[in-house]
């Protein structure tokens, strides 16, 4: 005989799970943070994520895969990258916070027209005008990010906190640091690791419209940030420096159903003037990408996300596109225990 179940409690858990996992993923630093990256989860929530990124670029000026990666001017590059992430949500100084760890790996290939390459940068044995192809494979530099909410979200410790949670404006502060322990070959123009510390300071903010309930949620999200780079003192035996990169990431997200949301994505970056041994190389970067994200919550724990973006404004001598496919698994001890009690004969 089918047992009747406690409806209020079911509702409660449904809400809690939805709040935990609908938007869950960890920031994807290689491209952008992504939609709903700074939505708050319950204290004690865990997330793991794997994502595949395919990046394709053609440039007649200095270019990069992500703000840490310097790519020489006049190049074509492709990268297939995997990123594994883990994020934990907790309360810090009575504010909802999260710590995220990311590990990048994969391969990248670059084809460079050496006609325009200063001769001092030509790798040994490569004549000016010759075609130059290089590739790199391995792990990138792991990153760690701390995000703390400043305004608009109370600590989400108890189920009561979740039930009462109806955000409007929220403002966070986030700091990310990359540790240069990834693959790096000082003979190559391209590497997965960067041989330098770099990081980012961000002020993620968002505004929620309407009911904060699955199926109803709509948000406008804006994250201004600045990337800062240490110098790479062994770039083909020379010193590579980059100016700060200023970035604005925006999203308009909307629930299409209880388990499915879409987002229009914007990413604008400017700055990142490169210097090698004190000489400017290429121009300052300006690139604006527009994209689309679809996010589907498969189960209480599993979410799948896919996105595509491409540059539509900014430097005219640049083309890039990014395709992402991401799987997220999230859990919270109480939710798992609830399932044990209700689904397994409790």
């Amino acid at each position, binding site marked *: 005989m089918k047992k009747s179940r406690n409806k209020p409690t079911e*509702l409660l858990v449904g809400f809690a799970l939805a709040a935990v996992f609908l938007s869950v993923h960890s920031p994807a630093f290689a491209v952008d943070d992504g939609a709903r990256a700074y939505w708050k989860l319950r204290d004690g929530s865990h997330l793991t994520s794997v994502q595949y990124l395919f990046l394709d670029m053609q440039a007649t000026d200095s270019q990069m895969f992500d703000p840490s990666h310097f790519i020489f001017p006049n190049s074509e590059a492709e990268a297939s990258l995997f990123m594994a992430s883990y994020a934990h949500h907790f309360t810090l100084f009575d504010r909802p916070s999260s710590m995220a760890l990311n590990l990048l790996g994969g391969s990248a290939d670059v084809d460079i027209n050496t006609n325009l390459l200063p001769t001092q940068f030509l790798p040994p044995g490569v004549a000016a005008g010759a075609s130059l192809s290089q590739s790199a494979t391995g792990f990138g530099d792991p990153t760690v990010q701390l995000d703390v909410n400043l305004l608009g979200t109370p600590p989400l410790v108890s189920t009561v906190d979740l039930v009462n949670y109806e955000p409007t404006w929220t403002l966070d502060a986030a700091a990310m640091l990359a540790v240069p322990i990834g693959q790096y070959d000082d003979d190559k123009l391209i590497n997965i690791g960067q041989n330098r510390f770099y990081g980012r300071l961000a002020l993620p903010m968002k505004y929620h419209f309407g009911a904060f309930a699955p199926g109803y949620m709509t948000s406008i999200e804006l994250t201004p940030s600045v990337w800062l780079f240490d110098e790479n003192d062994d770039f083909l035996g020379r010193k590579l420096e980059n100016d700060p990169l200023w970035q604005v990431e925006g999203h308009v997200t909307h629930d299409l159903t209880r388990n499915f949301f879409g987002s229009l994505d914007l990413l604008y970056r400017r700055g990142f003037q490169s210097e090698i041994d004190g000489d400017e190389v290429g121009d300052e970067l300006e690139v604006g990408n527009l994209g689309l994200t679809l996010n589907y919550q498969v189960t209480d724990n599993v979410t799948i996300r896919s996105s595509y973006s491409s540059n539509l404004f900014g430097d005219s001598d640049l083309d890039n596109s990014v395709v992402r496919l991401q799987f997220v698994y999230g859990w919270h001890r*109480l939710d798992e225990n609830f399932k044990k009690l209700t689904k397994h004969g409790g």
Partner: protein
Amino acid sequence: MDLEGKICSAISSGIMVLALASSLSAMPAHANDRLQAEPTNKKPNILLIVADDLGYSDLGSYGGEINTPELDKLAQEGVRFTDFYVSPTCSVTRAMLLSGTDNHVAGLGNMAELNAPNQIGKPGYEGVLNKRVVSVASVLRDNGYHTYMAGKWHLGLNPDEIPHARGFERDFSTLVGGGSHFDDAWNVEWQTPRMPYTEDGKPVDKLPEDFYSTKTYTDKMVQFIEEGRGDGNPFFAYLSYTAPHGPLHLPDDWLRRYKNRYDEGWDAIRQQRLARMQELSIVDEGVSTADRLYFLPRSTALTPAVRVMQGRKMELYAGMVEYMDDQIGRVFDYLKEIGEYDNTVVIFISDNGAEGNDLRAMVAGQVGSMGFLHAMNNFAEDAHNSLGRKGTYAEYGPAWAQVSMAPFRLFKGWTAEGGIRSPLIVSGPGVQGAGELNKQAVLHVMDIVPTALELAGIEHPATHEGREIAAVQGKSWAGMLAGSTESPRTSEDWLGWELFNNRAIRQGDWKISWLYRPFGIDDWQLFNLAEDPGEQFDLSDEFPQKMSELVALWDDYQERNGVIMGERSPFERSRKGLPDPVPEFDSYPPLRGLEAFPYEKLIEMMSGKAGAK
């Protein structure tokens, strides 16, 4: 709550009661003005305000914590009554309200939607306000009154049954019993998927912009009075709100007006209300009040989060009540502005007890049914944070309904006191005793017709449009309101009720009640309401003679009004799905005492970290 919290709570509730008590005893200047206004030859206006499913103890002037300043002010200017009766459901009450006679005579022997097979087509069971009666609006209109209606009708859908055909010269009405309060206008019944509205007797194709039931009804009523006042004739205005009937809907900016006000849970709120009711003398000290219904959990046994989720529904309900009060204030302000307030008798009532049944589940039906399809199309959304908005159908359930009906037992649909007791406030010219509470008079909704007619100096007609009209059974309050008597009824007078086969008779302080199990015993029980308003102690064994007398009155009532007991009843299987009632003991189970556990600690316990400890 810890000791400090308890003390603070006691102090604050004491301050609240004292403030309310002093405000009720200290008659405002305007109340004096109303009483001392020079008598004029002009007949009084009559403003009849009916709330839909409002509970007995919801208003501030009846002990409720809901903010109802306009109705509390009305209570200061007029008189409140403790023993005012209506029917267990709305259309049945409305039939009596407008006809002045028993519902079994007026056509609503049963709700039209729930007539039993053996009742269909029988006189008194037409399901509409039948032609054996004349509506008070028709009588007043025929005697020079403007007659206006805004709000819920629920007394017939056909052209000759709608408000315009039953005496209202202007109307903006929803003809059915309930549905969305927004412009999506879905009806609770799939058979009529959209709520039919009429304006001045014509179907409304498009609802006004920014339609919200309570606001729009108020707008229309003010408009009708304004457009009709040029000739100086008095008006009868029937402002028949659909609030706070479910679905609990509110405009966005009112959704969280009572944010977390009810997280304490229904037991604590009910106790606070009972304390205030005692302070206000609405409930006597030492009398027995109803226990929490046996199948409902004590709120302290629920997790804090579930209490918050349940409390959210009560927040919505309270918001609807306050919103209605606010709109009633708009009408009062308008009447003052045009100089008619002091010549207007205002009567405020609810149509039945608060709603504790799961109407949503009843109308949504089973998977695969038309009701279910209707629910899928219109009110499937039930996420916690979306409740109260379009597309949702929240109700606050039996536990909160019991709070609304404190100190009584049960709620809408039942002939227990919780189904049939209503607040009543009367104020206006000729109403003596501003701010007083009348506990002597036993009054009935049928009394409003003879009262209105006597205040207007009009005789109830024996015929109308060539038809013989059933006699009024209600008793006029005019003498009582003027201060010449305490009650229009003597101790020998009695009142009777029957709906869905549940039935009751009250005579003096005695009441017999027949209720389906498990809330009754499928047989008569005897209660003394003076000592036991909660109907907790069946005295039939101790007073068999009294029992016999009242059962004989029931036979008289049934015979006199043509009551046909239904072959079927929506409540005949109330036991299904409910556990068997068992006696409660304070000392058992032994883990009780959770009430004393600090609320904050409970919240902490429910958090992940504290739980891990």
